[in-house]
């Protein structure tokens, strides 16, 4: 076994390098209900995190391989000065549809991993992935709330209402 290379912070100066054209518009083949995910990332003092990078992945996107542009099923966006991000995709499949989320930021020496669900909280609590916290009020931190045409999901890195992050 070769030893892994350690993680280091993405720092404050990544955005020019890691910004992808249309990075917030997920490419998927076929039809489906469109989903607009909007959220704000805040720190332990409740202040917006204006220099985070948000990536989402919905596994097994269908369709033939593409030759140019962004990969299917994947989004990458940075937060704005108000800590907000916005991702346009289509509803993932399953009883508890979700996106896998990875967060990078200055001050995060390692990425944070979590999930956002587009389903009623009861359905989310039944996800086997969350079995060990199925009855915890913290499950609510993983559920996006429908607000008009958008789904709203805020991420709290630390403190009251802290989002559930995964050990992975």
């Amino acid at each position, binding site marked *: 076994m070769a030893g892994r290379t*350690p993680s280091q912070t993405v720092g404050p100066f990544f955005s020019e*390098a890691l910004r992808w054209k249309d990075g917030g518009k997920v490419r998927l083949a076929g039809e489906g209900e469109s989903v607009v995910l909007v959220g704000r990332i805040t*720190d*332990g003092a409740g202040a917006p995190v204006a220099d985070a990078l948000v990536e989402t992945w919905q596994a097994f996107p269908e369709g033939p391989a593409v030759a140019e542009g962004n990969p299917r099923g994947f989004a990458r966006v940075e937060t704005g000065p108000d800590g907000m991000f916005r991702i346009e995709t289509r509803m993932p499949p399953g009883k508890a549809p979700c996106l896998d989320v990875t967060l990078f930021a200055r*001050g*995060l*020496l390692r990425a944070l991993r979590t999930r956002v669900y587009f389903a009623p909280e009861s359905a989310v609590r039944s996800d086997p992935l969350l079995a060990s916290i199925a009855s915890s009020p913290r499950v609510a931190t993983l559920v996006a709330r429908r607000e008009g045409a958008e789904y709203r999901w805020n991420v709290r890195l*630390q403190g009251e209402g802290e989002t559930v*992050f995964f050990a992975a």
Partner: protein
Amino acid sequence: MNDLTRPDNVDPPYLFEGYRSTRLRAPQQALLALPPGALDMPGPRVPARFVRDSDNDLTTRAKGHPLGEKMIVSGRILDESGRAVGRSLVEIWQANSAGRYDHPSDTHEAPLDPNFTGIGRAFTDDDGWYRFVTIKPGAYPWGNHKFAWRPQHIHFSLLGNAPIQRLVTQMYFPGDPLLPIDPVYNSVPDERARTRMIASLALENGIEGIALGYRFDIVLAGVSATPLGI
């Protein structure tokens, strides 16, 4: 402790007192342990034309040549079992030779270089090899503590071939006197793991009379032989 499923002391903790920005951003609750293999799935496949052949040469973006010490960094990307991570996206960014990023948030009083953006992209080949032509970045001060200067470094972002391989790290240079006092570098608990972030001088990777060569290999997490869902 808010960490870790991997008890190998390779990755830094979220809270590291010496790095001030971690204090309000590190989670305080225990991380949720997932069933083994739960996130073991294939990742995004980046289209071939996402990267142009010239994207790995940071010295040819403008009419003129950037200032500084021309260098080539190349290496292999492997997983923990030694398998090549082929055809995967590598993105880098760095300060110019004066220690200034071409980024609106960098207010360091060092000059921008009109011939250097400090941004590059490459795919690994089937054997996991990548290569960048660039300029050795300068050290620069930051506000973390009194007389704080970051050692010279190049940021690396690796997509790997699976979400669990996703890694953002930094490459450092051998013999840098700032390394022993840099909190970001020293946030890695295991000393041997720390030194894996330091490139080695590899003259034969350079171009005679033109560019100094460095070798930087990167090891990503292993993907289990039978990922769920395949």
